[in-house]
């Protein structure tokens, strides 16, 4: 058996650099500007904004003044805090970053390289379409067989708002939806009454496929404005994307749950058939900006660079 040599390590590093440059060039050509976010986050602040993040996965650092900081578990929060507090009206920013995020796992602290973009200040649909198109461009650059999965946190949150769940119940529901555990979900939801909403929630895991398919399942099952807004937005975005010819690679899943609680609006994830992880994830997060200042239209995504590199390297494509 042969083990890793210095030579191999440097070659690999070179390849990673090349891949990074490749994507950077693409982003630069679309007028995105590079920024370098800070590595530290205030622990309390981060947890209060991101309720779904497992607290023990964050990497904590004790400050000189006895306060707890964490090494950034995601770049978006960091970036928005910096810009939202001093936002100027009519500003439009297209930004990209290359940086590491940190998380604790069973095997120790992990560093994950991420590249990402954020589009701030542009009207919702216009930015949505442009950013999703960019995500599709990145995915299609490396693979023919890919999927961009899209959902709407407005639709799901709107539906869940119809109930009055306790925090534990809410967590349980989210877990069942996340795991597509439809049999258990149906049983669990039955105890909450709210018959109309419960019927929709029980069938939420069936609402998948092309936009047409999704629309035909949902018909007019909106229980409130938020749900209606969610599905209509997807419809408009889909209309635009159909014109680009990339819509065939999009799958809608209205039960999609985002890792970070701050997404409100369209959310999406990109997959390759030969990778066991997400390659791209992102969404609209205007509500996060409000936590730190004015409400600014904001959408973005991140690319899992390590995973992308691994997939390409395994097949000798880089």
């Amino acid at each position, binding site marked *: 058996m042969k083990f890793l040599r210095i030579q191999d390590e440097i070659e690999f590093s070179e390849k990673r650099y090349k891949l990074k440059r490749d994507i950077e060039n693409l982003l630069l050509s679309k007028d995105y500007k590079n920024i370098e976010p800070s590595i530290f986050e205030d622990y309390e602040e981060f947890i209060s904004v991101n309720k779904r993040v497992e607290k023990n996965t964050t990497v904590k650092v004790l400050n000189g003044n006895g306060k707890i900081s964490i090494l950034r578990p995601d770049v978006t929060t960091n970036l928005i805090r910096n810009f939202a507090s001093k936002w100027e009206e009519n500003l439009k920013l297209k930004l990209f970053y290359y940086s590491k995020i940190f998380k604790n796992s069973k095997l120790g602290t992990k560093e994950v390289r991420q590249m990402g973009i954020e589009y701030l200040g542009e009207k919702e649909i216009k930015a949505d379409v442009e950013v999703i198109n960019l995500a599709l461009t990145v995915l299609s650059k490396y693979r023919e*067989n890919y*999927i961009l*999965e899209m959902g709407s946190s407005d639709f799901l949150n709107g539906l869940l708002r119809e109930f009055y769940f306790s925090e534990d119940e809410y967590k349980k529901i989210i877990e069942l939806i996340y*795991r*597509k*555990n*439809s*049999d*258990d979900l149906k049983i669990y939801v039955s105890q909450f009454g709210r018959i109309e909403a419960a019927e929709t929630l029980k069938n939420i895991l069936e609402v*998948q496929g092309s936009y047409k398919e999704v629309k035909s399942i949902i018909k007019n099952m909106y229980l409130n404005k938020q749900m209606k807004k969610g599905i209509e937005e997807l419809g408009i975005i889909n209309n635009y994307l159909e014109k680009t010819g990339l819509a065939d690679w999009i*799958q809608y899943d209205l039960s999609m749950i985002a890792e970070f609680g701050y997404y409100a609006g369209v959310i999406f994830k990109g*997959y390759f*058939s030969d*990778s*066991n*992880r997400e390659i791209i994830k992102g969404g609209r997060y205007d509500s996060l900006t409000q936590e730190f200042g004015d409400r600014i239209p904001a959408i973005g995504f991140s690319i899992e660079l390590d995973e992308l590199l691994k997939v390409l390297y395994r097949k000798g494509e880089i």
Partner: protein
Amino acid sequence: MSNITVAIPKGRLGEQSIELFKSIGVGKKINTKSRKLIFKDEKNNIIFILLKNSDVITYVENGVADIGIAGRDMIMEKEADIYQLHNLNLGKCKMSIAGIKGQEVFKKDMILRVATKFPKISKNYFGKKGQKIKLIKLNGSIELAPLVGLSDVIVDLVETGNTLKANGLEILEDMYKINAQIISNKISYKFKRKRIKEIIGKIKEIEEEKYD
């Protein structure tokens, strides 16, 4: 059409699942008496792999198997990032806490010693109740632990209760109902959703027929 790889556990649950698959017309060639571990159903583009019970989830989570059959006990214990697509009417039992019959074990101020194959489930369960415990991870013959003084109680699967009874133990509390589930790799589900749903749909039909 690309293949679907199905992970089947060895043992009784496996035998029952194979029977289920055969009843929907796939995996006709599977023969558990032979030593082969891979069976290809070329007509239906399905590959079956036979694995140790606890490895099914690992294979599915890592995407080398697209779907699999696994007990809820294992799914809970491994906390794996997978989809739990369908509840099967197989592998039904319960997970319970048991101790020596008639013996008072629950001294609230003491650390309860718990012997089990399921350390994570036990830790979470007792943690929620605020009971301090010392976990003793065993791999088999869990019932022995309280008898020889290794633990105060055990957390284990109970089907008929006969093993407990034969060893002078009794159930102190039922924790969870257990059954087998069809699980799926998350990415496989995105790319092969229609086929996976078709297989599950057929299984549901068979189940309904049986039920009627």
